[in-house]
């Protein structure tokens, strides 16, 4: 058998043993045709599935970590629902099994599939102890109706629960040797190193300093306790605080020098038993000096008290204020005040009209169409006022001159028609293109024709007609001003 030589030395496997219990589980097969017909089954399984318990050593000291393996050997069988092994381990503290490793291994020329479960344990009491047996439950699969003697005996479809059991093994936990045992030995076993630091290295009396002690190496960290410390001078020593990491345990301990006579941490020591060297070891660090200054505060307070008692001013603070200033409600801040927040709208509200006016000016400057529309509106307003005046004060020619002039200017600005191009046909064409409805266009044509007739003396115009023209113009302008072009 290819026995591994692992971690802590040569392994000590138990003898190969197979104890199994068969029970039909949920099968409808008749006994005569069942793949698990009991005839010859035990013999068939004996060399094809078995469990081994292996420990790395037969003798150990208390708290010494001992690697342990439980290995399941399988040859040409289908197993499922393989459980974690169970192990009787009275007198030992054992960790959980890790996830199993899958391997292939040859035993007596036969290659097996091996499922290997690993863990570590350590003895908690001295004496001779029986470890095991390891037990493992799994389910065996086999095909129905096959001959048990054939190589293809187990195929699929029928299940049997198997309870595999290894042999027991003996393990002796020896007491720690009395010879050479350090006084501060508290059961730590392994091979460790110790690192110590103090933060800060300079302090005032009364200030805390932190002593950080880091134990690292290999071994049982569950049994590593805080290193012992010896201090020189007046220190108040607080309980340490442990931080467990992988292969490292850190103890942080606060010390407070009470007076400036506190000088140093004389020694930090940690003792353990090294099972490989079979000897105790003590690591000592120190002395670690700490510069402790007298308490600053105390001195100043003493001086201050003396100066106050003696009436001497000494170093005085600035005097009190004679006025309470602006008393306000406690906890009230401007950023929480609704009034203040609303007030922030005021500049914005003042800014908006300026912005709109600025935008208007910019558009007047850069947008010819917009500017023309605005000019046309003003021109229409002014022209209507003028026409109203001429309607009562002047004759029909002046009135229609004014109407024509206003319309020409209005249409030119509103629809960007050059004055040289201002004919009735052209105006009608542009207005149609701009989507002005036919009724309005007809009204405009009528007004312009009336203007031509009166201005060039072909016709007279009475007051009623002028009034009608004025109404038509108002209606048309109203329509055009409302129409979004």
């Amino acid at each position, binding site marked *: 058998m290819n026995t591994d030589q692992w971690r802590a030395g040569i392994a000590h496997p138990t003898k190969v043993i197979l104890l199994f219990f068969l029970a039909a589980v949920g099968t409808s097969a008749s006994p005569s045709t069942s793949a698990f017909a009991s005839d010859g089954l035990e013999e068939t399984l004996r060399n094809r599935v078995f469990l081994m318990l292996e420990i790395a050593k037969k003798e150990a000291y208390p708290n010494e970590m001992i690697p342990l393996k439980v290995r399941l050997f399988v040859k040409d069988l289908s197993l499922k629902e393989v459980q974690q092994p169970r192990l009787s381990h009275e007198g030992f503290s054992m960790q959980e099994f890790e996830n199993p490793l899958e391997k292939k291994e040859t035993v007596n020329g036969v290659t097996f599939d091996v499922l290997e479960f690993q863990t570590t344990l350590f003895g908690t009491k001295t004496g001779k102890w029986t470890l095991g047996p390891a037990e493992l439950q799994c389910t065996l699969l086999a095909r129905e109706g096959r001959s048990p003697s054939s190589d293809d005996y187990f195929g699929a479809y029928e299940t049997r629960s198997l309870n595999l059991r290894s042999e027991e093994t003996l393990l002796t936990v020896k007491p720690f040797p009395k010879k050479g045992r350090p006084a501060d030995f508290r059961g730590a076993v392994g091979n460790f190193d110790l690192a110590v630091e103090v933060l800060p290295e300079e302090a005032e009396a009364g200030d805390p300093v932190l002593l950080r002690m880091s134990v690292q190496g290999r071994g049982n960290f569950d049994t590593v306790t805080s290193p012992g410390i010896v201090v020189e001078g007046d220190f108040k020593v607080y309980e340490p605080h442990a931080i467990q990491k992988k292969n490292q345990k850190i103890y942080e301990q606060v010390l407070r020098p009470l007076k400036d006579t506190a000088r140093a941490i004389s020694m930090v020591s940690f003792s353990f038993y090294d099972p490989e060297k079979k000897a105790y070891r003590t690591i000592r660090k120190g002395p670690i000096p700490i510069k402790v200054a007298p308490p600053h*505060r105390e001195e100043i307070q003493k001086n201050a008290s003396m100066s106050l008692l003696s009436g001497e001013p000494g170093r005085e603070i600035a005097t009190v204020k004679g006025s309470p200033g602006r008393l306000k409600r406690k906890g009230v801040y401007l950023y929480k005040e609704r009034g203040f927040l609303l007030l922030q709208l005021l500049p914005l509200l003042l800014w908006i009209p300026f912005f709109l006016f600025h935008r208007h000016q910019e558009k007047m400057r850069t947008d010819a169409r917009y500017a023309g529309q605005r000019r046309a509106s003003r021109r229409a307003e002014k022209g209507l006022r003028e026409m109203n005046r001429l309607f009562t004060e002047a004759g029909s020619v002046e009135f229609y001159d004014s109407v024509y002039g206003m319309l020409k200017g209005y249409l030119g600005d509103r629809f960007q028609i050059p004055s040289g191009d201002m004919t009735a046909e052209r105006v009608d064409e542009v207005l149609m293109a701009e989507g002005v409805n036919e009724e309005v266009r007809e009204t405009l044509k009528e007004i312009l024709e009336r203007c031509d007739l009166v201005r060039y003396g072909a016709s007279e115009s009475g007051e009623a007609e002028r009034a009608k023209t004025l109404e038509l113009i108002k209606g048309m302008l109203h329509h055009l001003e409302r129409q979004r072009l």
Partner: protein
Amino acid sequence: MGQGYPLLKKIVGLLLLLFFQIACSNPGRTGEGRDIFRQALLFYEKGQFDEAASQYVLLLDQGFESGPLYYNLGNCFFKKGALGRAILNYERAKKVVPPDRDLLANYEYTKSLVRGDPEPARAWHQGSVDRLFQWTSVDGLALLLSGIYTLLLLISIASWYIQAARRYWIHFLIILTVIFVLASISLHHRISLQGKEAIIIADTAEAKFQPFDRAPAHFIAREGMKVKVLSLKEEWAKIERSDKKVGWIRKSKIEVI
């Protein structure tokens, strides 16, 4: 504004009313508050610092506060030798009013008498921004932001109508925007710390790993040390020192600024 904007007129009117209400709301003008303050001054002049402090506390208990009130109370505690409480009240004064020379001098001096806080572990940019605006209070920062915002709007108007302003508009815009952003960060930081900063008022206090008396000590918090309160649990407060060390301390040993 003309006749065409009645709603705008109403809103502006309302805002102006609010402004005057805020500006004129000064309960300190009430005689009672002044009398208590005056009484406290008399006690202080006679060296009766306990009585003076009681008068200031009485005024605070009535729900009022002001920079000079906290400052004077800080002075009383200083004279009594309670440096932690003195620093606490100077800190409170700094929150309420822009610190003047007296306040800064007394604060710095008192801080120098106690052991300083450990080296802060905050981000450099946050420290720089806070230092930039340490001359002003929370309200001062709010007013500064409001002023910059108004100024930005005014400058934008000026840039539309005044040729010279148009030339320098972009420079003003950049400078004011940078100041605005930094002041906003500082104000936000201060607001986020409201009610979360505390001063150690006991002579020394053990900060422990867990919130119970027998828990191992982690560090010693000294009087006057400023800490951040992370959470509360019964009689214990979880605090963070400026070097980011965290521990549990009895609530009675600290007072929130």
